[in-house]
């Protein structure tokens, strides 16, 4: 694969940590890089939420054509310098159509974050459920789930996603992206949950609850599951940047989000023919994408360090 896959897996999941949200937040904010990353992420979410407001303030929309902002004599290059950056178009305009880049980038943030977060939710739900069952019950359940995870992880995921998506023309792309990303991502969550659940299942508190007559369901839900929140939070945070990058990569290849819905990867793809004449056009979505992935990566590292005593030593 070309490296845009959701594969960053923490070297070791924390044994048995129950995070209290407030203390986790405090520990995160104590690290400067984590605090900056968290701020960036919060800002990005705000930008995504406020996208219509920002476009309205800029006096445009992501699909409005501004033919007056491009110069037909130059093959549709934006008028003025720096890709058409001006008082009316703060980040310039798209060559050819003259659509406002700021409006498209902020709407692109919506798509990017929504798909990445939903895909994370899908993979965490699937991975936790299957990993928990496999690790707790062991036996043939474990064998089946384990083999399935091995198989999925040995698939060339990017090419398979492409095959899947391109073979389903009429389906809602954003939904399909979430399902496909989540489906190929859950083994990475499941592997960690399974290992933890195996350890927890042998814990004394589980044995005690069992002796007290707790049902298997109660054991899973009340004894084991709460103790998994730490590792799950770590692996979830660490998988978000991979999903952001993969969605952008698929959109770049033309099999992600469909136009006219803007997406960063798709914007960069449409900037390829113009890169020599109008570098601003690929720099803007590229920098947004880079900063988003970087912020989530830093945050993921920080969450792991905060919850995993083994890695904090480093």
């Amino acid at each position: 694969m070309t490296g845009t896959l959701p594969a960053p897996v923490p070297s070791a999941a924390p044994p048995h940590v129950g995070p209290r949200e407030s203390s986790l937040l405090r520990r995160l904010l104590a690290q400067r890089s984590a605090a900056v990353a968290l701020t960036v992420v919060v800002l990005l979410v705000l930008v995504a939420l406020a996208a219509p407001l920002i476009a309205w303030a800029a006096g445009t929309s992501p699909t409005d054509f501004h033919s007056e902002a491009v110069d037909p004599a130059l093959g549709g290059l934006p008028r003025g310098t720096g890709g058409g950056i001006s008082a009316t178009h703060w980040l310039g305009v798209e060559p050819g159509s003259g659509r406002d880049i700021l409006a498209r980038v902020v709407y692109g943030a919506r798509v990017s974050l929504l798909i990445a977060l939903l895909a994370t939710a899908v993979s965490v739900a699937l991975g936790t459920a299957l990993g928990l069952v496999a690790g707790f019950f062991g036996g043939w359940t474990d064998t089946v789930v384990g083999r399935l995870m091995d198989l999925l992880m040995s698939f060339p995921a990017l090419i398979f996603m492409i095959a899947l998506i391109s073979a389903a023309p009429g389906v809602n792309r954003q939904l399909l992206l979430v399902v496909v990303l989540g489906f190929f991502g859950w083994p990475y969550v499941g592997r960690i949950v399974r290992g933890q659940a195996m350890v927890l299942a042998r814990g004394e508190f589980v044995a005690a609850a069992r002796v007290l007559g707790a049902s298997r369901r109660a054991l899973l839900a009340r004894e084991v599951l709460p103790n998994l929140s730490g590792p799950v939070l770590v692996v979830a945070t660490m998988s978000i940047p991979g999903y952001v990058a993969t969605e952008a990569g698929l959109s770049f290849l033309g099999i992600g989000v469909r136009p006219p819905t803007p997406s960063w990867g798709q914007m960069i793809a449409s900037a390829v023919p113009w890169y020599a004449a109008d570098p601003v056009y690929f720099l803007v979505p590229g920098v947004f994408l880079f900063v988003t992935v970087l912020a989530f990566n830093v945050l993921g590292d920080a969450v792991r360090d905060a919850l995993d005593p083994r890695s904090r030593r480093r």
Partner: protein
Amino acid sequence: MILYVLRRLAATAAILLVVCAATFAIFYLMPADPAQGACGKACSPERIAEIRTTLGLNHSVFVQFRDYLVGIVAGRGFGTGAHAVNCPAPCLGFSFQTDQPVWRMLTDRLPVSVSIAVGAAALWLIVGVTAGVVSALRRGSLWDRAAMTAALGGVSLPVYFTALVLQYLLVVKLGLLPYPQAVPLTADPVGWAGSMVMPWITLAMLYAGIYARITRGEMLDSLGQNYVRTARAKGLSEPAVLRRHALRPALMPIVTIFGMDLGALLGGALITESVFGLPGVGKLAADAINSADQPVILGVTLFAASFVVLANVAVDLVYALLDPRVRAVG
């Protein structure tokens, strides 16, 4: 050992069969009509019916799958009479859009993908592992922090963005390199290297970051182990301790991911090849997707999957060679 190898190979064949079936099922269950794809947009219903017969689409999915598997082993033909085409073994399908067997298209493109993958791998392995080891030995130093920041940046850079920035700076602004195009190594080694430099750097920026981070973590782990303390205590020189007792175990996980990454790249660096317009297997996949050439998409998927699965086997075998415990358990 031989038994172990045989067992691994059998498991590999099983995985490849499952991958093959899954890929086939995806294309069979999905609504897109392969006959339509083979014939293009302006196509009469009669012609489509004819192609359906030629491709064997009127048979059940099991028969089609059996024919496909038989084709891989023994080759097959499509159609009869004047329209008949021959697809020699290993037949991964026939592209009616380009009028070529998929296998030939793949093998034609493979050298470019191999050039990209091997060069990039050498670059990122040297840079990533060295940076990681130095960082671990000088933990907390300015070098460590700078290298790890750079690594995190590299990991976060999307390859197509790196590719565009490099191309803008090196080709358009500075004029240091020509626009990338496929130059065969045998015809013009210098031109070949020149055309490969940007793809190598692009991929290496990403992977070197990953490798530096992993190497550093593993190295710190092994440096904290008791056997390293023992090695020091028994009076081994520091370089010997580092090389034999700290670095060796730290590199074991690197062997694993290196095998997997290289395997994945050999099956085509989809995005990198597309951005630089280099005609490798990845570019073939991207083109096939754009023109909805289903036999090619199916073939590339299987081809790339085989590389990943075979890389897995290679990694396991290397592991077994390095660590006898694996042989006993495996």
